[in-house]
């Protein structure tokens, strides 16, 4: 960043002595525009010494996927986006995250992931996709109820009915993790893959959900993969790969996302 050509130095008007005549005497003052000495790179030093980089929603070490960072002014935009819960009708898109979660039937570990210490091994040949989908339907149902409960809207009002019909009731402010949608993408015993849309979650909570699905099916399951595919308005397409972690790609990405972020902020404010 520092190597890139910076802004041209500011100019200001100075009254300088006119160039001397033949005999070297100063004749008068001439107004000339000269660069401000304070802006000279040798005086100023490198232009960027610190960069404020803030993270959006957390992503833990074992998970992968979209991770939103705000640079400089972007941090303020992020806080604005996440403070939208103070508005009257809760817009949930900034909090909305989607994950693909991979699971494996047959074992249970202490930290619910496949790298943890083994607690128990169980059979899983009785599990079918149908049974799994039934459990997922119930999970979605109970979480939907929690969604309505934490939204702090009085259920007896017509407003609550209208919001419930449109599916716009969302929790205001803090709430425990809530799964808004869950479905099975792939199922080949013993592996399976789920797509989970959630709010206010942590990746460890998702691993716990996989573990509990295993228990409900009278077997056990561990989580093999947690990958965030969407964080608010940012999807996998916007994300930079490891090979793209250089200045040009970052600048381009910021540029491309600007419009999206602007429209989202306008909606919430």
């Amino acid at each position: 960043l520092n190597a890139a050509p910076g802004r041209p130095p500011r100019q200001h008007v100075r009254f300088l002595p006119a160039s001397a005549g033949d005999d070297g005497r100063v004749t008068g003052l001439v107004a000339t525009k000269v660069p401000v000495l304070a802006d000279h790179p040798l005086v100023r030093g490198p232009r960027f010494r610190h960069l404020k980089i803030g993270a959006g929603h957390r992503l833990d070490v074992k998970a992968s996927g979209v991770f939103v960072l705000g640079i400089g002014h972007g941090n303020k935009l992020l806080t604005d986006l996440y403070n939208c819960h103070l508005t009257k009708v809760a817009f949930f898109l900034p909090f909305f995250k989607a994950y693909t979660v991979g699971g494996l039937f047959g074992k249970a570990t202490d930290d619910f992931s496949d790298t943890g210490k083994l607690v128990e091994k169980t059979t899983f040949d009785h599990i079918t996709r149908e049974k799994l989908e039934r459990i997922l339907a119930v999970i979605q149902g109970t979480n939907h109820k929690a969604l309505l409960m934490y939204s702090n809207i009085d259920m007896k009002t017509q407003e609550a009915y209208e919001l419930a019909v449109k599916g716009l009731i969302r929790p205001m402010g803090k709430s425990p993790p809530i799964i808004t949608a869950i479905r099975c993408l792939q199922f080949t015993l013993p592996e399976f893959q789920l797509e989970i849309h959630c709010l206010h979650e942590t990746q460890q909570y998702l691993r716990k959900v996989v573990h509990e699905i295993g228990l409900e099916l009278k077997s056990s399951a561990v989580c093999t993969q947690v990958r965030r595919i969407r964080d608010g308005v940012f999807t996998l397409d916007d994300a930079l790969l490891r090979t793209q972690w250089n200045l040009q790609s970052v600048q381009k990405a910021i540029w491309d996302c600007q419009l999206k972020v602007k429209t989202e902020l306008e909606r919430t404010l």
Partner: protein
Amino acid sequence: GALRGARRAVEVPLAPRRGLAEAAGRRSTRQLKEAEEAAPVFQYVGKAAKRKDRVFVWGFCYSGALGVPSFVKPDAGWKKPRRIQPTPYRLETEEKISSAACGYGFTLLSSTTTDITKVWGMGLNKDSQLGFQRSRKDQTKGYEYVLEPSPIPLPLEKPQQTRVLQVSCGRAHSLILTDSEGVFTMGNNSYGQCGRKVVEDEIYSESHLIHQLKEFDSRVVQVVCGQDHSLFRTKQGTVYACGWGADGQTGLGHYNITSIPTKLRGDIAGVNIIQVSSYGDCCLAVSDEGDVFGWGNSEYLQLASVTETTQVNVPRHLPFKIGKIKEAACGGTGNVVLTEEGNVFVWGYGILGKGPNLIETAVPEMIPPSLFGWSDFSPDVRVAHVRCGLSQFAALTNRGELFVWGKNLRGCLGTGRMEDQYFPWRVTVPGEVVDVACGVDHMVSMVKSFT
């Protein structure tokens, strides 16, 4: 992890013992892997395990209608009697229950078994709506309240062959439908609702009398109890009625009581009726072509779409333009129908399910499917059945979820809250709900476990 059943395990401990010559400290990845492979595998349920059938109850407990004696008479000194069970509670039954019905303060459960005991009853028994329940303390007297599911002895000719198909309960009478021996009726008969001649000054409590009805034009396939009347639907699609008729709910063209089941005419004459429903004083019938017919009480606009009279004593066709109707359910003041496309329509008076602003309507209004779990993410969720209690509604989806709405009288909605529910709300049941029976202040559901 509270679902563990019986475990079959090997006695090998999880961590293999360390030999004396091995060093202590962190084990290498290979050692961990080997330990993991050597660990025993537990089997909680086998490959051919079948899903279990369960019964869940909730609502007002003191009548005994929930069938859990400890709610009324606690079995431990420190426990207090429970007046209301606000969330589904599992009821242990000996047999698989195939049909359940909730009356006004009592419940009937029946099974299609060929064993001697096919029907169980619990709750209020002051009119012998549960048959004669001999008291253990005094052999000459019967119980007024039955607190746990007790067998109802039926005077069957072939008790080990006949099966009970369906049960239905009204305010103080019950109907039991069998596959080959007609319909058995018990309970209050002051208006002829049991299908037999009214006996003046008859005492209904502690009565042994169970009446059998066999004279219909063909086999009876559905029995329905209104508040004080009974409806019978036969295989040929005809409907018979008996009982109280002051609101025209017997549909026989007069407002008197009827003590012998008589065939209905009016707009359903010659129509093949595939379903009948009633719970209060209004009745609905659905034909095989998707038309709906109604008769009975119309004080709450149930039949106002065709007539201004508040008592309709002849079945009238209700010309609704909402599509072919698959199923109808009648409540005390509100009605609900389910169309072939899976949409739910409500009309009548009371909490209809479209928010507090919709209190009454004579014309059916649709409840948006998004309230039943339909969304872009799950577009194939459909309502499969609709049921009515006296002032509440229930809907079952094809995913096995139960939604309820209406007046939450003594916790009968099962949502865990005591407030009325103005739009469909999920009831959390640990299993797939197969059927539900709604009463005045309690409900019973038949559920299949997940695995």
